[in-house]
Every structure is written in structure tokens, then in C-alpha cells.
């Protein structure tokens, strides 16, 4: 089993969510996040005073997937989140040791 984490632009969330649902994903966790990558942030001006905002608002998306689906899922997320502009985000996956559904106590793939 894999945990796929994606950090994406907030306005791409709906797109990514629909693509994942179309793929057949049953659940996900969405968190508001902030951060920056290679492009750093941007500059804002208030009454002539310039502020460098390097922590840019992002959405952090987490999905648990079976090993066979993981690669395809990553592609789905990347395709839906891409705008082609700087700051589109990152997607990565890590192996998961255990998963338990809290309501029933089911473990492993049954818990997805």
C-alpha cells in the first residue's frame, strides 16, 4: 500500500478531486498548507512598502492507494494539477505499513 501526497495550487483542487473520483478513489484528506519551492514567493506592495511573501498558500492532498494503482494515481493527480506555470507543486508516494478502518477494525486493503 502507498500513501500519495500531493502539494498543489489551491485553485486546482476541484480539478484534481474530480479526476480522482473519476478514477475511482474513495477518499482523500485535504489540508490547507503553505510553503515554497524553487521559485520562492512573490512581492506585495502596501502603500509603497514592499513585502516578500515566501510562504505561498497551497493545498496538501493525501490519498491511500493499493500498490498497483499508485503509479496511475500519481499520473492522474499530476495531469489534473498542472497549469504549466511555476509553483504547480509536487507529488510523491511512500510505502505504508498498516492501515486500519477505525469503525470496523478492518486492516490492509479492506480498510481503504
Amino acid at each position, binding site marked *: 500500500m502507498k500513501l500519495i501526497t500531493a502539494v498543489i495550487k489551491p485553485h486546482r483542487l476541484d480539478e484534481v478531486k474530480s479526476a480522482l473520483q473519476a478514477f475511482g478513489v474513495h477518499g482523500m484528506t485535504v489540508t490547507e498548507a503553505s510553503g515554497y519551492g524553487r521559485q520562492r514567493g512573490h512581492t*506585495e*506592495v*502596501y*502603500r*509603497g*512598502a*514592499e*513585502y*516578500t*511573501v515566501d510562504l505561498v498558500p497551497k493545498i496538501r492532498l493525501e490519498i491511500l492507494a493499493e500498490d498497483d494503482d499508485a503509479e496511475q494515481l500519481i499520473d492522474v493527480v499530476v495531469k489534473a494539477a498542472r497549469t504549466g506555470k511555476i509553483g504547480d507543486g509536487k507529488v510523491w508516494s511512500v510505502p505504508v505499513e498498516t492501515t486500519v478502518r477505525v469503525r470496523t477494525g478492518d486492516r490492509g486493503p479492506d480498510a481503504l
Partner: protein
Amino acid sequence: MEAADIAFVVICAAMVMLMTPGLAFFYGGMIRVKSALNMLMMCFIATGISSVLWVLYGFSIAFGDSVNGEGGGIIGNLDFIGFKGMLGVEGSETLLTFAVFQLMFAVLTPALISGALAERVKFSAWAVFIALWVSIVYFPVAHWVWGDNGWIGGLEIDGREVIDFAGGTAVHINAGVAALAAVLVIGKRVGFKKDPMRPHNLPMVMLGAALLWFGWFGFNAGSELAANGTTALMALNTMVATGTAVLGWLAYERIRHGAYTTLGAASGAIAGLVAITPSGANVNPMGALLIGLVAGAVCAWAVSLKYKLGFDDSLDVVGVHLFGGIIGTLLVGFLAIDGAGGFAQFALQAVAAAAVMAYSFVVTWILAKIIDSTMGFRATEDDETAGLDQVYHAETGYDFSQTGTGSVSVASSVPATAQTASGEKKVDA
């Protein structure tokens, strides 16, 4: 006063009343989340205090007969204390209409100062400051400018008189220079020029600016105290000067910083409104356009002075109100219609502006020093860093998450407590 005029002026008073909460939103949106409520409260407490003092003695000191008799009046006498003898007598409706209209000016003027001291003063000290400031600065200065025998109102050169239609000197220059004096005593916010202090809610700033703009029609046009041609000219000039001031500020910003900001548009509007306040009844609409344009561009430049000179006027009360007030007060010296413009008029205007600046600066500086050395004017550094909302008001402006709600207890017999950032409990008796 005719019934129609009374109706008009009372409605104008209500419009001016809306300016103080408008100002609260204008200022409130410009500061950081953690002290947003405190900012709103600094304006609301001004409304409360000035309203009370106005009835007790404010109106009497400002608009009673001068204690030093005819001409050259410094301060009004106490004949109207508690509004005694003013009800049910001949002319009482005129006096009361005037009193309620002018009260709104006495509310707004001290509230204007709050923007300079945002995010770092003790709430109790601010309340004491306002009570004393209106008593020894605003009420007398209002008497100088508008009182029957006020010395500024009575100045004359070649038959010309000082032009301050709706309060360029008494309100804006007065508040702007007082803000500067108070800021010099109180000092900079923790992290000034180092930490980012971005406005937390620009839509709120725009809403506040719009409310101010609306209320300003009452402020300016109502100052004629009648519904006539001068009133109409003032209303028109109020609109057009504000329009060009928005353009002036944005043009400056586009050239200087490459963007047209919403905060700039809102600030430009206020700068234009300030500048047309003293002059709008005495210039033609072309003159108003020029005054607005100059005010917008110059105030946009003036707000950067605090970084160059190193005084922390948080929300640019000096840059907008002092500079805007001076621009309007001086420019009308040359732009006044009906043959009033000229060097003599300009000199008169300059004397009025300089006198108010000198008095307001010195007295406010001393007053702030006294408050600072007795009860302390500033919040503690810990409280300032944590934000003043929780410390002084036991509230927060926004609930960002559901994780920090804690348990609820409704106990009427328990005194309200607020936790200070430093950990000890404060109990409000």
C-alpha cells in the same frame, strides 16, 4: 433655522456618525489579525467618550461665548454646561441641531488619531488620552475656528477671513499633528521595519473607505448648516476631488511601484476627501479637481516618510490627514473663487494651519508624556506581540479552526477574566 434645514443637517449628522465606524473598518482591515478588534474598539470608545463629554462640557467649551469676551476667543465659557438652559427656549432647535452635528466631528477627530497608535497602546490609557485630548485640544481648537468669537475665525487681512469650511485645520491638521506627537512619545511597534505588517483584510478597508466617502457628504455639505447652493457646490466638489485623488494616488503608485493597489485607491479617496474639506465651498469644480489630484499624489509620497524618518505612524494618519489637510488649507489660498484667492489669503491660511499645528503638537506631546509616565501608555511587549484582542477584550476577531475552542462555562457570578500573554490572569472588576 427652517424646518427643512434642520431636517437636512440632522440627516447629515447621521451620515457623519457613520464615518467613525467606517473609519474603524478602514483602520481595522489594515492591521494584523491579532489586534483587529482592538482597532475597532479604539474608534468605538472615542464615540462613547466624546458623546458623554460633549453633553457635560464639550459643547459649552467649543461653542459657548468666549470667556475673554468679544473677538480673539481662546475658549468658550461654561454657560451651556450639561446643555442647561438650552431646551425649550427661543432658537433652541437651531442650537440643538448644531450641537448634534458638531458632536459627530468631536467623535471622529480623536478617532482619527487611533490609526497612528494601532496595535501597541493600552486600551485604558487610550481612553484616558481621548478624554483629555478632546477636552484640552479639540474643544478649544474648534472654538478658535468655528466659535462665535474664535480667534482664527476672526483673523482678517484686507477684509479677507480664514477659509476652513468643514474642518481642514480643526479636524484633519489637528488630528494629523496630534498623531505625530503621540507616535513620537509612544515609539515604534515591536518589529517595525523588520516584521511584515501586512493589512489583514483589504475588502474591509475598501468597505470602510466607502463608508467614509459616503459619510463625508454629510461632513462637508452639512457644514453649510442649510440646504442651498453652497451646499450643492460642496457636495459636487467633495465627489470630484475624491475622484481625482484616487487617480493621483494610483498614478503615483503605478510609476513608483508598478501596480495599482486597492489600498492605494482607498487611501487616495481619503486623501482627496481630507483636502477638499476646508476648501470645497470656495473653489469651482476645476479647482476641486486640481486639489484632489495634488492631494492624491502628494499623500501617496508622504506615507513613505515614516520609513525614511523612522517614526512608526502605523496607518499613515500623518501622511494622509496632516498632509491632506495642509494641502487643502493652503491651496484654497490661491484657488478661492469670488476674488478671494491671492497671497494675502494664502498667508491667512498658513497662519491658521501653523497655529493649530503648534498648539496641537505641543499639548498632545505633553499629554502623551504625562500618561506614559503615570499609568503607562504602551502595552507590554509580550501583550503587543501576542495581540491586543485577547489581552484587553477577551475576544478574538476570527475563529480559524475548531481545535482551540476549549470548554464553555456560563457563570454570571464569575468576573470576566482575560489571560495575558505573559501568563498571569487579569481580572476586570
